[in-house]
């Protein structure tokens, strides 16, 4: 294999395991332990992607989560492709196949790069200023092309075959980040015996300490790597600590509730992924949180600072030390601090040529710069890079001296050939999670960063995320603050060797020798926002930092500004002459780094999307070819087609049978509330519109429930089982809310009432048998019940037995037929149903579903709450004045019936409708007018709420609410449909058996 840029030794990769992968169709090799970025760099590949707007060539810039440029798409199949992944985070595995994004036809030759040519006329916000004429072209022309050019990778086009999981975890201490600070905090905390969780987003622990130069950094005379390893091994021995790698905290919510994503298989070869959970979302409740999230290195902002081959200095160091990869052979470094010198020395020690170091400072007496001077590395003090050359890869930098005040460049420009430019602009504490949690920041004017000032939750920040730099400072702080935070005393002395040199100078936007308008100094690499865009926004009056962000889109790319946000703030602060502390930051929003929808949803997809509630007779319905209807979470038998019957035919047959012979319906889904207590009758008086005190034991009564604003809310039959005992039925959909509302009133408004409610919906199965033969069938099925009308009249109930099973039979009817409802303990539901079917066989018993039930009740004009009503209908509107007690002093909703609008005479009222042509069936939801116009708008007077063809009346019938309907009986109205207008006559709502004779038939 040819890894031209791989050093012959070193790094943490496993050189015995060669991994082959594909990049843009070409097979390349790396080692196990490589990231895609390190493997590409080992192969000498820098150019990975194209930028969002100008399609400029872009290379690998960093080594981690902050990467703005090197985004790739993993190709597997249509259901398993992943867009927008960072090459710096992908751990390579055998058969990994990735391509560059946002380029066509290829990353090397991208037509979109023409945008770069036009870049001068497309500054920030250009689209607000153009594409307005003509208006009609926006969607299909301008927007079409803008959309096509925008976007990054491609969405999968097939269902994701992978599995995601959720876990909950409670701990006393959560430590986020396992760099030196996090490890030290964990080490200290572990001894306390508390339950601890330590997480880090990377595959290995130690953070940036992992790749620091071992000659200059030591803890207790151990190399950084040895110390990390030892510390980790010691931690692992503690039973009270759980350690997770590849686990990133995405969101930090109030009350120390955190969301984390753990990657379980993305790094494995495909064959090892099979059957395993891909990612796990953790929901953490932590008593205390220790943030040790580290810091992110900053770039430098100068003209053409975005070319492939320009990389963060710390990243270059990491590629050498961790992966044994040199990112170039002729290296230049541009810095404002000593840290970059460690990179220089590290590379130099590995035999890589450092051509020059450009330092904006006028000197540094730090250990590392001195060493560089000793090594003979050329340092250009008080200088800046003003330009870079090289289209697809940097090949030259232009350097000039800085003026005394750093505002200008002076002297002659000189050029240095190179194939890599390491930039180091200092470090920004990673305060994202801290601010998500509600913490307030303060700006350090000397060190030029925001750091945690005041936290609102039970939490501390330690290490560089707290603005503490220097190895010794970091680990001492972690130890001290952890002790204090957990109120323990676990001290250990450390002997730390580290280079001296903290001198740091900061220039947000480096001066240039050009007209600033001619430069392209990128602040947000991925979104192609430049310093000029920021200046333009300010010039146009966008003063707030949030406006600048939105106008220029700085910080809104997939890296969420991890690289460039500080510079954007700095530039705004300089230009507007506002102190950064006063300017503030834009809001950091979750997640810290993007997380898959799949992980957020976990297993709650497909059949687990929502609970499915099934009645005890569900299996029977299924076996008998029922079609089901979703009613809330319930599956209800809708109709039972036999022999390829259409829905219409099945419903007609079922409805007819129910009136001529016998029908059987599964009514188990109706809500059932058991009400007991000495004030039960009074309670019902208050919650229903009608009176309950005089209902005799053993009798049933229909009740209507209103909202406090007077609108119909629920209805159902309630049965008095004993002096202080009722059972209420509610609508299927309303069961839970009615129960909740009743409890609410009992506990908070009427605590003096002695009433106890229990939801018993799932405890009973309900079989409803109706029709002329229903009594005969019931007599065969039940024992101990006398079904004579005198003993067992309509609206009463009897207890009985079915074999040895207790049952409660209610003689109530929603179809208008003689009808009984058998209630048995739920487990017996199916057997009782089957008994009824058997007993009814000779009588032609026919199972009917909800659709026939709706038809049958419509023939009788019975309302369905939620169909005839929509939250705007009063009982008076329904012409149900009879059920609204005038005598009762109060009930829920009563007062609202007496407001000016609810008392209006011409409200929409419940009526029946008949079509001229009895075969014409109106569409439910169709609107009604009194006067037809040639074209809309037309004044609507109401709408059709229910409509069926009645097999028992041999004509179509409909129910409706119509303005002033009470007074319109016999009048003609019109239903204008798209292709015709249907004339209708207003009728009574009861179409069949007005006298109610069939109840006793």
């Amino acid at each position, binding site marked *: 294999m040819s890894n031209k840029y791989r050093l012959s030794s070193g790094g943490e990769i496993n050189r015995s395991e060669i991994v082959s992968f594909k990049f843009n169709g070409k097979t390349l090799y790396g080692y196990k332990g490589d990231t895609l970025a390190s493997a590409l760099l080992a192969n000498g590949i820098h150019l990975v992607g194209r930028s969002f707007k100008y399609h400029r060539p872009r290379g690998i810039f960093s080594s981690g989560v902050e990467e703005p440029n090197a985004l790739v798409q993993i190709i597997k199949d249509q259901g398993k492709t992943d867009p927008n992944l960072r090459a710096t985070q992908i751990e390579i595995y055998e058969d990994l196949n990735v391509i560059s994004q946002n380029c066509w036809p290829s990353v090397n030759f991208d037509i979109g790069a023409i945008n770069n040519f036009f870049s001068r006329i497309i500054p920030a916000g250009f689209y607000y200023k153009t594409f307005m004429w003509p208006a009609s072209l926006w969607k299909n022309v301008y927007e079409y092309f803008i959309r096509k050019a925008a976007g*990054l990778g491609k969405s999968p086009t097939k269902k994701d075959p992978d599995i995601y999981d959720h876990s909950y975890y409670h701990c006393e201490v959560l430590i986020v980040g396992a760099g030196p600070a996090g490890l030290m905090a964990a080490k200290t905390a572990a001894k306390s015996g508390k339950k601890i969780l330590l997480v880090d987003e990377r595959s290995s622990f130690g953070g940036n300490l992992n790749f620091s130069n071992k000659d200059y950094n030591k803890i207790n005379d151990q190399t950084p790597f040895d110390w990390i390893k030892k510390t980790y091994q010691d931690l692992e021995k503690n039973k009270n600590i759980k350690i997770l790698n590849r686990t990133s905290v995405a969101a930090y919510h109030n009350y120390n509730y955190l969301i984390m994503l753990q990657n379980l298989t993305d790094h494995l070869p495909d064959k090892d992924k099979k059957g395993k959970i891909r990612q796990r979302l953790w929901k953490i409740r932590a008593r205390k949180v220790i943030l040790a999230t580290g810091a992110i290195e900053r770039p430098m902002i100068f003209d053409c600072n975005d070319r492939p081959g320009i990389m963060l200095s710390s990243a270059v160091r990491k590629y050498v030390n961790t992966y044994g990869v040199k990112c170039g052979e002729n290296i230049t470094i541009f810095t404002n601090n000593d840290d970059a010198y460690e990179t220089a020395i590290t590379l130099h020690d590995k035999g890589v040529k450092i051509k020059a170091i450009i330092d904006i400072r006028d000197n540094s007496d730090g250990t590392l710069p001195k060493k560089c001077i000793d090594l003979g590395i050329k340092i250009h003090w008080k200088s800046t890079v003003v330009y870079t050359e090289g289209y697809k890869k940097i090949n030259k930098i232009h350097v000039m001296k800085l003026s005394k005040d750093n505002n200008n460049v002076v002297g002659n420009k000189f050029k240095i050939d190179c194939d890599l430019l390491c930039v180091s602009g200092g470090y920004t504490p990673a305060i994202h999670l801290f601010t998500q949690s509600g913490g307030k920041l303060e700006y350090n004017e000397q060190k030029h960063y925001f750091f945690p000032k005041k936290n609102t939750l039970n939490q501390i920040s330690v290490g560089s995320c707290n603005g503490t730099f220097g190895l010794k400072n970091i680990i001492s702080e972690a130890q001290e603050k952890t002790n204090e935070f957990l109120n323990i005393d676990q001290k250990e002395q450390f002997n730390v060797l580290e280079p001296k040199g903290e001198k740091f100078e900061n220039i947000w936007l480096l001066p240039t020798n050009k007209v600033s308008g001619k430069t392209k100094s990128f602040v947000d690499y991925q979104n192609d926002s430049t310093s000029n865009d920021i200046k333009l926004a300010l010039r*146009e*009056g966008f003063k707030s930092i949030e406006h600048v962000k939105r106008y220029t889109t700085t910080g809104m790319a997939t890296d969420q500004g991890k690289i460039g946000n500080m510079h954007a703030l700095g530039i705004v602060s300089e230009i507007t002459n506002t102190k950064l502390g006063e300017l503030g930051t834009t809001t950091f*929003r979750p997640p810290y780094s993007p997380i*898959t929808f799949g992980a957020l949803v976990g297993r709650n997809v497909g059949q687990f999307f929502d609970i499915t509630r099934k009645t005890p007779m569900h299996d029977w319905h299924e076996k008998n070819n029922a079609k089901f209807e979703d009613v809330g979470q319930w599956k209800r038998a809708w109709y039972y087609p036999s022999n390829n019957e259409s829905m219409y035919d099945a419903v007609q047959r079922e409805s007819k049978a129910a009136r001529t012979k016998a029908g059987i319906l599964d009514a188990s889904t109706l809500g059932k509330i058991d009400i007991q207590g000495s004030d039960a009758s009074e309670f019902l008086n208050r919650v229903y519109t009608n009176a309950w005190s005089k209902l005799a034991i053993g009798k049933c009564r229909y009740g209507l429930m209103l909202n406090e604003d007077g609108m119909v809310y629920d209805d159902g039959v309630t049965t008095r089982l004993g002096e202080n005992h009722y059972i209420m039925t509610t609508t299927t959909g309303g069961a839970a809310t009615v129960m909740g509302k009743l409890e609410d009133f009992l506990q908070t408004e009427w605590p003096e009432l002695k009433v106890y409610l229990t939801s018993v919906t799932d405890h009973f199965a309900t079989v409803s048998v109706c029709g002329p033969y229903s009594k005969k069938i019931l007599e065969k099925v039940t024992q101990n019940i006398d079904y004579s009308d005198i003993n067992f009249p309509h609206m009463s109930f009897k207890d009985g037995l079915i074999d040895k099973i207790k049952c409660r039979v209610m003689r109530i009817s929603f179809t208008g037929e003689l009808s009984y409802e058998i209630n048995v303990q739920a487990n017996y539901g199916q057997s009782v149903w089957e008994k009824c079917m058997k007993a009814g066989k000779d009588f032609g018993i026919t199972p009917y579903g909800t659709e026939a039930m709706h038809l049958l009740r419509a023939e009788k004009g019975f309302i369905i709450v939620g169909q005839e009503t929509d939250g705007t209908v009063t009982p008076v509107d329904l012409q149900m004045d009879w059920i609204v007690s005038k005598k009762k002093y109060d009930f829920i909703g009563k007062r609202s019936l007496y407001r000016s609008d609810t008392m209006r005479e011409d409200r929409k009222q419940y009526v029946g409708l008949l079509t001229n042509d009895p075969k014409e069936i109106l569409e439910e939801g169709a609107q009604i007018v009194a006067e037809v116009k040639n*074209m809309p708008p037309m004044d609507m007077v109401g709408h059709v709420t229910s409509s069926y063809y009645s097999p028992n009346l041999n004509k179509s019938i409909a129910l409706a609410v119509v303005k002033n309907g009470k007074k319109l009986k016999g009048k003609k109205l019109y239903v204008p449909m798209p292709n015709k207008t249907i004339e209708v006559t207003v009728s009574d709502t009861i179409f069949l058996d007005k006298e109610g004779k069939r109840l006793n038939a």
Partner: protein
Amino acid sequence: MKKKYSIFALIKNSLSYHENWQKAWRNPEPKSKYDAVIIGGGGHGLASAYYLAKEHNFKNIAVLEKGWIGGGNTGRNTTIIRSNYLWDASAGLYDHALKIWENLSQELNYNVMFSQRGVMNLAHNQHDVRELKRRTHANRLNGIDCEWLNVEQVKKFCPIINCSPNIRYPVMGSTLQRRAGTARHDAVAWGYARGADAMGVDIIQNCEVKGIKRNGDSVEGIETTKGFIRTKKIGVVAAGHSSVIANMAGIRLPLESKPLQALVSEPIKPIIDTVVMSNAVHAYVSQSDKGELVIGAGTDAYISYTQKGTHEIIEGTLKAILELYPIFSRLRMLRQWGGVVDICPDASPLISKTSIKGLYFNCGWGTGGFKATPGSGHLFAHTIAKDEPHALNASFNINRFVSGDLVDEHGAAAVAH
């Protein structure tokens, strides 16, 4: 006079490296007295000021914004614009707005990117079907475009929707309003601000209202962090903070302010060309021009002014998204955020006079105010200028809560987004 924006202006300005663009708006200090003051520099407030100046000839207007303009719900919403509401009053209001949207970019000379890509409302059960058909018929007779799509037509119009009959809540059809769509939210605030500023409206940012001064039953002025401002007319367009201002004036409103969240995915190439909403499973999604999937979640039930909601709401929304679009499972959430929405009990807004003379409220837009922005501003300006409502907002008065004449849009299966 503002210089016109155009491609020619862009080319011309590029020659001077864009150094000569005018300010989109000034940042003036407040005067001591105005003829009318709008509290709240969101889209609705800026539009109100714009139309007061443009159509009612008010010369001396200020808009007070406690933060930065467009920073509240204007800049936090999912930008859906539609007018397919059930009730006549709502349909009239929202279609008035939609008609203004159709020429807004040209009127403001600011591209608000109104994209009429259509809005679908999916039905998942018999109740949905009935209610959405009811709405379709009502829209048609109100002269609003709206069609019913059966499942095959749904599949054809938006192929990535999972139309399998075997999912937990199968798609049973959909409404489609073709004139509906999306717009660029920030641009609406900025475009109105630029337009209002050009007519002399003072847009005063970082100016928080501290008190409303009353003289008996009339308003006299406003205490602000930038001093006292005298005015006889105050239009409050403070969304989630409406009750806070109302409390200063000593009145109560039928509002609750709740967290509403939204999220975007990382940008991807175009995959969905319309807006799809589903009330039954609580999800709505569109794709921004930048390529992000813009996904709206529901409100939390409790009052909060923190602009933060609960994780469970996000999870529930994405659950529904993946149910409808299983292909999105591997896409990644880039950013989530929250706003504070003020909700009336009937899910309809208030554009109303109050018991105090000179004090007007435009609030209660709940989760769906963005779509109404131009219409809301236009009608509110009328209400303030004439001291009486326009016919189109007469129903949205505060007295409806006394009479009971509510405009109940949630009972009518109209998702209020």
